[in-house]
């Protein structure tokens, strides 16, 4: 097998931004999760928030597509943008409240595949 460093097939000179994720993923690996009952609760919170995040992303994608299609006046676009911003912010707050990262929200639903 190639050494880990050889896995970079193409990369820019500055790799720092691409390595930033590591601390976050490190947490996903280490003992952040406690005893079993906590796991189930976290699992439930993650499940609920994943569904919420999925809907938020779908709505945002739809809204962006609508803007791209044209025909919306500036005021409407501004309002859409502000609402989407607020939704994104709210989602970040929720994730922080439950101590969940983006990785935690990407749940595997077995036959349904990954949710996000």
């Amino acid at each position, binding site marked *: 097998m190639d050494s880990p460093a050889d896995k*970079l097939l193409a990369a*820019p000179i500055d790799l720092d*931004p691409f390595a930033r*994720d590591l601390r976050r993923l490190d947490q996903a690996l*280490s003992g952040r999760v406690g005893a079993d009952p906590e796991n189930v609760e976290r699992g439930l919170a993650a499940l609920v928030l994943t569904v919420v995040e999925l809907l938020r992303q779908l709505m945002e994608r739809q*809204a*962006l597509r609508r803007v791209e299609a044209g025909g919306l006046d500036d005021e409407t676009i501004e309002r859409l943008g502000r609402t989407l*911003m607020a939704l994104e912010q709210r989602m970040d707050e929720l994730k922080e409240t439950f101590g969940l990262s983006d990785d935690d929200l990407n749940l*595997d639903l077995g036959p349904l595949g990954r949710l996000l």
Partner: protein
Amino acid sequence: MIWVYGICDRPELAAPRRPGLAQAPLDSLREQALLAVFTRHAHSLGEPDADALWAHERVVERLMTDRTVLPMRFGSTVADEAELRRFLVDRQATLAAALAGIAGRVELGVRILAQREDAGPVASGREYVLSKLRDGARADRVHEPLAALAADSRLQPPRGGEEVLRGAYLVDRSALSRFRAGVQRLQQAHPDVAILCTGPWPPYTFASGA
């Protein structure tokens, strides 16, 4: 406890003679057209660290050198061989189909970061929308040509911040250098983004439906 590394085709081939996690020897279990490769452990393996991750990966990559392998998610364990066999029997059809879909192919990862002109918070709703549309366009400009060089691709929603694309591409081994050249060409054509391509990886992303 049994730690599973992958499900392979060519079940007539024995497990490679090399250690897996915790230096345990590799063993295998055959069920018709499938072969599961695993190690046995008397105790829990404790908290996983980077070395354990690479150890799992090394086994999967070694298997990839002479057969097609559906990689197992890290941490895939069962109590005993009976349970493993039941799994293979229950999922025989989907596993075989998944193996056929990845035969002769590898996974390449692509991450794209946009260099943001304005580092500050977005000033208005309109700016937010425009910025997202720009990101989407940037991502498409790179994703479309790369997808054309791959047998399959999966995009994740970008992780926010500077990231505009996070994708996995299933590429024929024979097309690997063409794909890599494609990435380099696209990077030159689009200096406003930073493109990272890693691999070749076993096809984890394309195995997770199985």
